């Protein structure tokens, strides 16, 4: 591995839609997939890393996230920092629609960024909490493969679970 402890060492990533991103090494190392790659191939740091499973939209969001969290971590831990982290995470998720959340999860999973992944998982769970079955189906893009009788039987068995859900707003 290069002995240059220069902070500005950059790594180039190429997304599925052929955009290239230059990121600081520290940020790239947040992606465990990439970190592992470099641990195993110390000479490859000059090459461009292809990320065929990640779009540029996703990657730029992920890079933003990692940058911010690195900055948070560089400061001393305190409850106000925790509060800021929480607020940042909330804002990060709030603005995104369901489609982009799903894409982010897939990307975070592919790049193996644990903290981001946990946060996104919780966000997805929060989005389907107290939603109707139809909403959840649409959210995940699934077909209903129950026969009407089967569906009615399951509903009847657990009637209580189907009351009081939020009305679908999509």
């Amino acid at each position, binding site marked *: 591995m290069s002995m240059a402890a220069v902070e500005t060492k950059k790594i180039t990533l190429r997304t599925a839609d052929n955009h290239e991103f230059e990121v600081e090494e520290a940020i790239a190392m947040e992606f465990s997939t990439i970190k592992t790659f470099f641990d195993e191939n110390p000479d490859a740091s000059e090459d461009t890393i292809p990320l065929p499973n990640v779009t540029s939209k996703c990657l730029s969001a992920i890079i933003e996230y990692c940058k911010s969290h690195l900055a948070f971590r560089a400061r001393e831990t305190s409850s106000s920092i925790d509060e800021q982290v929480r607020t940042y995470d909330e804002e990060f998720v709030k603005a995104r629609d369901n*489609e982009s959340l*799903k894409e982010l*999860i*897939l990307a975070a*999973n592919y790049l193996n960024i644990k903290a981001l*992944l*946990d946060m996104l*998982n*919780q966000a*997805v*769970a*929060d989005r*389907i*909490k*107290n*939603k*109707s*079955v139809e909403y*959840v*189906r649409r959210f*995940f*893009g*699934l*077909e*209903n*493969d*129950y026969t009407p009788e*089967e*569906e009615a039987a*399951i*509903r009847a*068995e*657990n*009637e*209580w*679970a*189907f009351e009081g*859900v939020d009305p679908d707003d999509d």
Partner: protein
Amino acid sequence: MDNCCDFIKLLGPDMSMKILLHLDNPADLIRVCLVSSSWRQFVISNGLCKQLCLKLLPEISSVTHTIEVNNLIDPVKLRQHDHLELECLRRNHRVYAFLARGLNPLTRKDCISEAISASSTDNYPEESIHNTLEPLDRIEHIASYWSSEGQSDPAIPETLIYKLVAKVCLVTEFHVQPFQAYFQYGFPIYSSKAVRFRLGHPRLPEASDTKDGSMPSHRLADDKFIWTYISPEFPMAQENCLQKFKLPENVLCIGGFLQVELLGRVQKQEMDGLYYICISHVQVVGRPFLPRFDIDILDATGRCALKYLPETENCMLSSGSPNWENAASSRFRTLTARLIQRGTRGWEQMILNTLLGTVAAGANETDDERPT
């Protein structure tokens, strides 16, 4: 952009499980099951309902063995061609979904609904076990406590049997307050040396019917029950306070009955030189499951089936929490009956006490005093 194909397939089981485990409302998990049959299969084969129960109520982990293995849950009708393990998973899924739904988030101190019987009672009914449901040691200047019969051998134990508010109850703690005879010279406290608790269910279905309203038998009914849990022995202090006995681990009582065993006597009554045990109050702290859980005793060995009664659900939803009201009102009925009995006998008792030389407290109660 085309729709994501099946999310669970896309992300893989581990990731999907992580997302679904972030749900903390069992209703959400049930709705997830209805999304598609493959999702339902996913939830069942990964035991997500059980995971949710464990998350909501970590104490359940000590009893999952009981629920799943000890045959306390009657297996559903086995279809011949079904794989045994899958049937097991399906059964667990159903049981845990019900349990998750039934988990009462609040721990209550009033898990006792009725007093059933005592191994012995001095001066029935004034000193009957029903008084132990009343937290005060006196009501309207009339003492409220249970007293055993006197014994010259201090080693002779006593037992008290109670019924809980729900047939399935997660019990965490017991409270017992011994009685201090404030009307006797020296204010003796009639505690026991130690106390031990048993939880269980009636041996046979008929035994679970308690004679409503009429005077219950106050003789030992111990052989009518099967005790599935025996607590360790806790030493009791000879102090007039509500003593707390925390169980080393939480216990799921299936069946809804409690036996309090009072071991060893410490206090002699000066008047007759005999040892007595007197208890002023007993409390059970725990989380009762909503009334829709019922127990069917299957046979004399005590094997029982846990039943879910969806019909009671509708009563629940429409009238708030009838369970608590029933328990409270049944206690109130018992209390009223007791007070009425006492009202008629109190005067005679006072005279008797005076003749015997014990000073009855509240000598200024009036003739026309009527409990409400």
